[in-house]
């Protein structure tokens, strides 16, 4: 029985609590609060109520018949996280953390965001539960994801542009950590992915695990059995951990994480530390595979999708790679973009560029599989936020 992390947040050699002393007390407090409320029937009932009535769970699974026929191999099923309120899986986690914050008496929440999906999901629950909300976002990402920036503002959040470093997700995380250390008494930091110091990788996974808890029930109903493989994109890796989690103890189900290959692994311009076998290092509170130079400085990453543009990866993915339980591959920008267009045309679904990476890998392997094989792709988000990016790449001014 899979039972990670250990009590100190380690997944084998990965994970842990690598933070400055000022944060140690707050992380301990969070760990204790989570241990208490995760078993509290009232907490669970409130969480489930909002997942159902506010988010719209369970999200359906959809058999992409037309796409599968077009490819001529394995049947592709999509877990429709794109249909959640706010348009992605991120809200599963922000509701959970905001309810924890409420019980811990914290009236102010902060978040980092890359594509803006986590920022929107945080701003949404902050409005829902009456909390002050500040979102840190790299100024490069603000450029790429302007609709989500406006969405956050509509929801009453303050969006703070981060100008340091590469002006992307990792720098937003640095800035959110700095805010947290300064305002630790009244502030709850809602981390959006399965990274950061313990207990974050565990609790973000647990709140997203609702995705695979539903899927293990839905797949037999719809497809008559569990999938041969579950496929999800991996930036930090929260949607992948969510859809993998209930399948980890089912050895017949292959788990495939798809990283952002950018311009190709060989080019060095990517965001695929697992696929590229990057050295292990420490960043943002945990030990994991990390894109860095020989001096241990974090290097700039590249991906067409802001949500995958991150030099590290959740420590649990590092462990699943080493243990051989999951396999990690990379999909390049152009392959992801092609998959984006294909799903639009063949199924009438506009996927997020992040999720398009998972889809592209499914489309790559499906033709070589028998027609009775089944692939489950986590369609982690919808692509409305990406239409400006795709239009620009197609040379179209909106």
């Amino acid at each position, binding site marked *: 029985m899979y039972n990670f992390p250990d009590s100190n947040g380690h997944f084998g050699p990965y994970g842990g609590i690598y933070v400055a002393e000022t944060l140690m007390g707050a992380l301990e407090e969070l760990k204790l609060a989570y241990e208490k409320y995760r078993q509290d029937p009232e907490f669970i009932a409130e969480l489930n109520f909002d997942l159902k009535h506010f988010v719209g769970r369970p999200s359906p699974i959809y058999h992409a018949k037309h796409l599968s026929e077009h490819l001529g191999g394995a049947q592709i099923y999509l877990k429709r996280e794109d249909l959640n309120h706010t348009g992605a899986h991120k809200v599963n986690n922000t509701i959970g953390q905001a309810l924890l914050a409420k019980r811990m008496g914290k009236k102010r929440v902060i978040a980092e965001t890359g594509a803006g999906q986590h920022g929107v999901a945080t701003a949404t629950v902050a409005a829902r539960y009456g909390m002050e909300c500040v979102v840190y976002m790299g100024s490069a990402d603000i450029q790429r994801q302007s609709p989500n920036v406006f969405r956050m503002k509509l929801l009453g959040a303050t969006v703070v542009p981060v100008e340091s470093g590469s002006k992307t997700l990792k720098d937003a995380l640095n800035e959110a950590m700095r805010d947290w*250390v300064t305002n630790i008494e009244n502030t709850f930091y809602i981390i959006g992915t399965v990274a950061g110091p313990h207990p974050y990788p565990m609790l973000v996974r647990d709140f997203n695990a609702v995705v695979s808890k539903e899927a293990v029930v839905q797949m037999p109903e719809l497809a008559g059995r569990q999938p041969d493989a579950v496929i999800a994109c991996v930036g930090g890796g929260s949607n992948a951990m969510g859809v993998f989690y209930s399948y980890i103890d089912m050895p017949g189900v292959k788990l495939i994480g798809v990283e952002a290959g950018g311009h190709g692994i060989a080019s060095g311009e990517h965001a695929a530390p697992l696929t590229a076998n990057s050295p292990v290092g420490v960043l943002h509170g945990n030990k994991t595979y990390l894109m860095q130079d020989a001096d241990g400085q974090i*290097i700039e990453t590249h991906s067409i999708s802001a949500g995958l543009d991150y030099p590290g990866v959740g420590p649990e993915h590092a462990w699943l790679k080493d243990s051989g339980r999951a396999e990690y591959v990379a999909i390049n920008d152009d392959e992801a973009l092609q998959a984006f267009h294909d799903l639009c045309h063949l199924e009438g679904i506009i996927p997020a560029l992040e999720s398009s990476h998972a889809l592209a890998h499914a489309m790559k392997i499906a033709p070589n599989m028998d027609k009775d094989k089944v692939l489950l792709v986590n369609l982690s988000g919808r692509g409305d936020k990406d239409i400006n990016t795709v239009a620009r790449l197609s040379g179209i001014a909106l």
Partner: protein
Amino acid sequence: MSRIQTVFEKLKLHKRKALIPFVTAGDPHPKFTVPLLHALVEAGADVIELGVPFSDPMADGPTIQRASERALKHHVGLHHVLDMVSEFRSKDANTPIVLMGYGNPIEAMGWETFARRCEAAGVDGVLTVDFPPEEGHEAFAHLEKHGIDPIFLLAPTSTDARMERVAKQARGYVYYVSLKGVTGAVHLDLSAIKVKIPQLRKRINLPIGVGFGIRDAATALAVAKLCDGVVVGSRIVQEIENSNEQNVVANVRSLVKELRQAVDKA
């Protein structure tokens, strides 16, 4: 007796408080680092904290972040920092040097190699901001093997249990972070320091330095009265930032002299 211990024993004997300035290695340019270190000593530094540049300095405010960025423009990595210490040490056998930074550059070099090179270069202590005792015990064993003191931070949020935990592993001195926040913040709460220091003394039998938020001679004096040493970082880095190549060493020297005079009134 280690260099750090010797310095604090001597200060105690003369009833003086330590002045511990911080500069980032390679800021504003690698050629200034060794001259700046000597200038700090001439101006009255007892111990020097030398920042190792890192791409993602999460615990630092904008001033020290920019110092890291300036150094990284010249690709100043851990190897260079160790070379700079060697060069400094060839002319100064007594002033302790503490390397301060984040864990990843050391992870990349390997802790055993790092500790061996620290010993060879004449480094006296290492403060790794993001390695608490819980995660660092194996790493710190390498340091101890080579006679390097692991220096730890304690914060207003540190519980009694954490103070005791740190007390077990700390050597040299402990660095009390005077506020909740990043380096260079402005709100220094003297009354909170006054309450915390006796609690630390009860549990930790090492000199206590206090830093974060010390902006000028007046705050340096006020803090010096309460502890064994005053750490000044962002204010010095700001002086470097506001100087040009011609006057940077002289400007830093006169600022540190001012701080020295203030600390000596304590």
